[in-house]
């Protein structure tokens, strides 16, 4: 085929593509001039499908869709323990059509671990609501010669360096919870990192490590099957789905508290009326009894706080974890 004719074909194609792009952009700009929401809303989750934030987002999405009148799509952007997802929302257009469902890690823990972040966790986001709170549960291998956390602490003090615990990743909430426990209880146990709680579970079941701190939904089946014994929960109060498990504070480590949350955030600069609409939608969804049941079955507690309360929580946690990570010497650089 002759080059000349092909060149013309190329030029025609470019023109066609350019034209379509322009029409598309034009249609887009016209659309955003209307009231909110006027397009599908994307809830960005910074983890692959199946994690706590992801499942929660998928449970809430259909209800939010009903409230907001537009399709609510969950989009996974995994990477760097939630940082990729957080970054993409930090840089998204603040029109309320792109929001972030995030655990506290990417916002208040990883900033202190030493890597430079491409976003500012306190300034680049407009918190909408803390959706749920949850806390890891500390479990032990079934054959461990201690049935309560208090007993284990005594055991560990008598045998420094003998025991080890698994965790879901350096700098993760489970790792921090156990390191805080070590420091406050004064025990010497080795930390063995794994690629996530899922990879650590076989290890503690087979007694490769003696202890594990992890999310309640992931561990409940094993507790029920008696392959793991629950020792304590790290929150300040007992958790409704495992009422017989004492808190760490109750087990002899006074003043210990460590909990996680999942929250909804919008990019900073999102207009106030959009924020109100979003907050109203999530607040209403969290009053739905079916939703509450799904959440509590997962060992989480419904919170549904206001944007201001959430912002306070984030700032408070940011400082708390900063101090904690510094005192534990966990930062990488």
């Amino acid at each position: 085929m002759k080059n000349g004719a092909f060149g013309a074909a190329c030029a025609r194609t470019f023109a066609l593509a350019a034209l379509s792009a322009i029409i598309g952009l034009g249609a887009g700009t016209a659309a955003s001039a209307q009231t909110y929401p006027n397009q599908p809303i994307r809830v960005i989750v910074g983890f692959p499908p199946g994690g706590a934030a992801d499942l929660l987002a998928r449970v809430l999405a259909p209800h939010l869709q009903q409230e907001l009148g537009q399709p609510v799509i969950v989009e996974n952007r995994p990477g760097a323990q939630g940082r990729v997802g957080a970054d993409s929302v930090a840089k998204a257009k603040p029109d309320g059509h792109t929001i972030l469902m995030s655990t506290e890690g990417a916002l208040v823990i990883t900033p202190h671990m030493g890597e430079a972040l491409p976003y500012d966790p306190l300034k680049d986001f407009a918190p909408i609501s803390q959706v749920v709170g949850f806390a890891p549960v500390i479990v032990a291998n079934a054959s461990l010669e201690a049935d309560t956390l208090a007993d284990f602490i005594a055991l560990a003090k008598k045998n420094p360096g003998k025991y080890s615990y698994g965790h879901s990743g350096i700098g993760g909430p489970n790792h921090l919870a156990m390191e805080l426990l070590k420091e406050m209880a004064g025990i010497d146990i080795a930390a063995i990192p794994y690629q996530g709680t899922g990879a650590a579970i076989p290890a503690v079941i087979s007694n490769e490590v003696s202890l594990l701190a992890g999310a309640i939904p992931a561990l409940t089946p094993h507790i029920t099957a008696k392959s793991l014994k629950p020792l304590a929960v790290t929150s300040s109060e007992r958790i409704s789905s495992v009422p017989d498990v004492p808190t760490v504070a109750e087990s002899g480590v006074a003043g210990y508290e460590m909990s996680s949350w999942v929250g909804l955030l919008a990019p900073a600069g999102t207009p106030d009326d959009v924020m109100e609409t979003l907050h109203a939608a999530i607040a209403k969804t969290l009053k739905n009894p079916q939703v509450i049941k799904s959440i509590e079955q997962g060992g989480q507690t419904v919170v549904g706080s206001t944007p201001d309360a959430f912002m306070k929580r984030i700032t408070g946690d940011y400082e708390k974890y900063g101090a904690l990570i510094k005192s534990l010497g966990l930062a990488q650089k």
Partner: protein
Amino acid sequence: MDLFGNLSLGFGVAFSFDNLLFCFVGVTLGTFIGVLPGVGPLVTIALLLPLTFSLPPEGAMIMLAGIYYGAAYGGSTTAILVNLPGESSSVVTCIDGYQMARQGRAGSALAIAAVGSFIAGCIGTILIALFGPPITRLALQFGAPEYFSLMLMALILTASLVRGSVLQGIGMALLGVMFGLIGMDVNSGALRYTFNITGLADGVEFAVVAMGFFAFAEIISNLEHDRQREVFVNKVSSLMPTREDMRRSIGAILRGTGIGAFFGILPGAGQTISSFAAYMFEKKVSRRPEAFGQGAVEGVAAPEAANNAAAQTAFIPTLTLGIPGSATMALMLGALMIQGIAPGPQIMTDHPRLFWGLIASMWIGNALLVVLNLPLIGLWTRMLKIPYRWLYPGILVLSCIGIFSINNSTTDVLLAALFGVLGYVFMKLSCEPAPFVLGFILGPMLEENFRRAMLLSRGDPGTFISNPISAGFLLVSAVVIVAMITPSIRRKKDLAIDESA
């Protein structure tokens, strides 16, 4: 355990109209997704999860499971036809499958893959029914030292995958390991080789490497105008395998099933390793190892059987111990828990309808897959006749969308382009991609488990030998190394003797 009673309960559940429909939808969707490059069962199951909330738990699990093992089927189709692995476990099928297609035996390859997968699936289902929990307890014996030794043995056996120079093959494998190390180091939290690109913090996605090396590099190579592009489509001989093919395959299928069933249970090891292991084992025990890589039908039968068997047995630890072997399994676990069902040993007694119904439906699903796929072979081979100028843009579009949809990440697509160029360079230098891919997958696990074993043993290297399973793998590795070196030593000795005479 009343096996017969349980199975009849299971089939009763599975044969209900609703559940048959769910099964059908699941396997069809799964096959389809397996064919599409990049898009995998993980993404699909995640998207369909909300749908399953309103379905009864048996139906939901039957459908999701169908998607999962259906995808293993579909991935082999594109591997054979266009040298593009639809799933990571189909990479090995590309080696001989594509060669068979070039020789006009695509129909035979596809049929053997389907039949082999069916047989493997049936046997796998029986294994789950009979030996579920005991086998899982065996898998629990695998700790860090065992995984390390297993990976080491596998990497050393990689040398047998190599068609050309062994040194180059080892170099490629190690190069693959290096690329596999990109990302965050589990044991220290440090980021390696990421050059501050956030998209690299979790490493390079397997599909990115596969797409780049197999799809893009191949397309670039085919677009060179100096060479005559082979028109092999006209040589499509028959759609059905010859008796010779079937005879050769049956042993391969059975061996592949055994290997796949074993690896499927090991959390983390997974289907990809099972297909590689089956291929390498088959080549080792074959009477005509030189045929491998040139279109040996056993080279298709063994890995296909293996990855399907692995897909079935992967359910065992998930259901009976609540230990998900992979991200996709973890998702299904999540689906179960949202339904209020707790996986674990008590699942067989607390929810017998679900457990046995699921197992029975796996058998049905495998049968459905064969019924679906065999007639489609004619359609697929006709696709080979599409002029290349239509085929390659289609592959490009599907691959790019597939890659992007894994993590919704632009970085992944850009990386795939780079791997395309690298793959093209490798092709020009006759460097084989298969050892690279194996190193890419296994290498990081090797390092992770070595360091973990050291952490656990507080720095004592003897831990690899004091654990019997680990010692066993190391012994095999040593034997293999010796076996590889001695022929060349003997050859050199013979040469020296000849020269001095």
